[in-house]
């Protein structure tokens, strides 16, 4: 660095030492060096000059409104400082003002690609505090929808990530199949996104007629679709050069950061909460946990593709072995009575009225429930004070935790590798900021 280096405020080794406001100010035009004729002997070599660049929050490759402050040396990324909070919605605070059953739509909108998982983990926490048993059929129905949701989420990841890496046609292919899943969601829940299908104590409705046939049609063709995608991508020279041996993070670092999900499994650690701590009768199904060997971007890509195949198997098994019985608990203190009872039973009417106006009360206590979302361990902490509204709802969102590994993936590498790193990280900013 020369003596006349621009005072960017973040150069050097440790940009986090600079106060936040100064970091924000450093990316304005005023702080840039004035253009002028270079003086011989004082010009800085392009390779040695540090350059601070602001990437985001409006950037097509950041999968949302993620903002990254990058310090570049030539084209090599020297430091990455993620700045988040651009879709901070105050959902956790809003949840404290809602009755338990009205919190579900709020938590669904946190990570907007895994809405079934958000609802499931919140309902699991509440059911644990209520000591409420979920009927087996409801558990299977939840599994069907969560695994379909996992396929949909991974398909969206595949389309947008391949788009970032330059394969635009993957977006059309992946979204074509995703539309079929959304059609299934629309059949069962009435909406494409944020279906509010999973309720405390079960699910809102049984499967509609025709769902089974349509779902099986989809499951029958999905493996061949994945074959087609892999035929396009697996041996694509551009993709291999962008992904293979890029962004390796040692397993110890990942474990130290608390990274979970496909990122951890790609590094060879078979940690999957569906196997490790089975919930919602996941132990009834026969499926494998795909893991990688090296932990580079290519392994992350392969692990997610393999997970889609396993999810197809789980949904097939769940459809085959769907138990008979109620789809929601018959505890009238928690779940709404069936519609037809309202006309005949005074008691049902009272229960309905009490639930809709006041909601159900949860005994005081706190609990933490965790499930395996498409991005890793999705946890929900609920603190109950005995009223009909939660005192605190907090989500441990996997995207937020996994984002820390971006620095280990991309520092010391080219900017193009950073784009691939964000794509393979699969962060959802709605979940990070909440």
């Amino acid at each position, binding site marked *: 660095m020369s003596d006349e280096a621009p005072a960017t405020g973040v150069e050097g080794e440790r940009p986090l030492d600079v106060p936040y406001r100064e970091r924000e100010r450093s990316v304005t035009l005023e702080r840039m060096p004035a253009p002028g004729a270079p003086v011989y002997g004082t010009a800085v070599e392009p390779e040695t000059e540090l350059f601070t660049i602001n990437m985001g929050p409006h950037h097509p490759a950041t999968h*949302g409104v993620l903002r990254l402050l990058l310090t570049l040396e030539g084209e090599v990324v020297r430091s990455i400082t993620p700045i988040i909070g651009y879709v901070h919605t105050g959902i956790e605070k809003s949840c404290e003002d809602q009755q338990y059953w009205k919190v579900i739509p709020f938590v669904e909108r946190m990570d907007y690609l895994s809405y079934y998982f958000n609802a499931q983990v919140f309902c699991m926490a509440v059911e644990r505090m209520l000591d409420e048993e979920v009927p087996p059929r409801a558990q299977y129905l939840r599994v069907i929808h969560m695994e379909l949701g996992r396929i949909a989420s991974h398909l969206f990841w595949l389309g947008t990530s391949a788009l970032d890496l330059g394969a635009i046609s993957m977006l059309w292919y992946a979204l074509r199949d995703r539309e079929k899943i959304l059609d299934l969601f629309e059949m069962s829940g009435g909406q494409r996104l*944020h279906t509010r299908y999973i309720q405390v104590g079960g699910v809102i409705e049984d499967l509609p007629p025709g769902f089974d046939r349509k779902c099986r049609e989809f499951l029958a063709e999905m493996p061949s679709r994945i074959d087609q995608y892999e035929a396009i991508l697996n041996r694509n020279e551009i993709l291999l050069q962008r992904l293979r041996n890029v962004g390796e993070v040692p397993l110890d670092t990942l474990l130290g950061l608390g990274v979970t999900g496909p990122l951890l499994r790609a590094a060879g650690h078979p940690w999957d909460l569906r196997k490790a701590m089975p919930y919602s009768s996941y132990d009834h199904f026969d499926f494998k946990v795909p893991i990688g060997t090296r932990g580079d971007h290519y392994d992350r890509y392969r692990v997610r593709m393999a997970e889609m195949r396993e999810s197809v198997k789980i949904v097939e098994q769940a459809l085959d072995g769907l138990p008979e019985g109620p789809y929601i608990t018959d505890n009238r203190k928690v779940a709404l009575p069936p519609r037809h009872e309202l006309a005949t039973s005074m008691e049902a009417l009272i229960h309905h009225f009490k639930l809709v106006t006041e909601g159900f009360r949860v005994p005081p206590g706190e609990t933490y429930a965790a499930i395996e979302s498409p991005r890793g361990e999705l946890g929900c902490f609920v603190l109950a004070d005995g009223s009909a509204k939660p005192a605190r709802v907090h989500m441990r969102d996997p995207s937020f935790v996994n984002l820390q590994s971006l620095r280990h993936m991309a520092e010391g590498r080219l900017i193009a590798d950073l784009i691939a790193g964000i794509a393979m990280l699969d962060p959802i900013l709605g979940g990070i900021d909440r």
Partner: protein
Amino acid sequence: MTRQRIDGGGDLRIRQLRARQMLRGELEGADLEQYLQERVGLTTLERAQNWARANAPWPLTFGLACCAIEMISVVGSPRMDAARFGAEVFRASPRQADMIILSGRVSVKMAPIIRRIYDQMLEPKWVISMGACASSAGMFNNYAVVQGADKFMPVDVYIPGCPPRPEALMYGIIKLQNKIKGQPDLGWRERYRAEGTEEQGTELA
């Protein structure tokens, strides 16, 4: 702008003679009027311009939250092909975009950035507020969300839904196209009588 034959067909020979007279400059009065109406589509330059603009509203690549997923479905899924309406070319640079689709909740932290991106877009420009959050904050009545994006920028079309279906977004784009076709005032300050709101100190030296 529709062309129609007034004489109801007629003989080819008569029309040829009339065209020859026209070229010689011998056609006058009612005959000349009729000849023109039969053969020339008349419009104003502004209307032709609006027609062209309405059929190529390039959106900005700008996703905020859940609605962005459905926005990508509009271009990405083969079922709704936004290219039918000329709105499929998502531009990453605000300088190249004609409209911005506010797809999701607008947080307090994001609002100045959206405004800045909007100011960087070149006139004429349009705004679609997609979904309940961008239109009125929807269910998020709290400290973090701007209660409707129209508090800090002009919005042309509101699309209800949480999130709206892709079809709803297509309908909103078509509504916007109709608005562009019939709207003579292209600058948003003229459109919304907002003269005097220009930012100070940002003029080019």
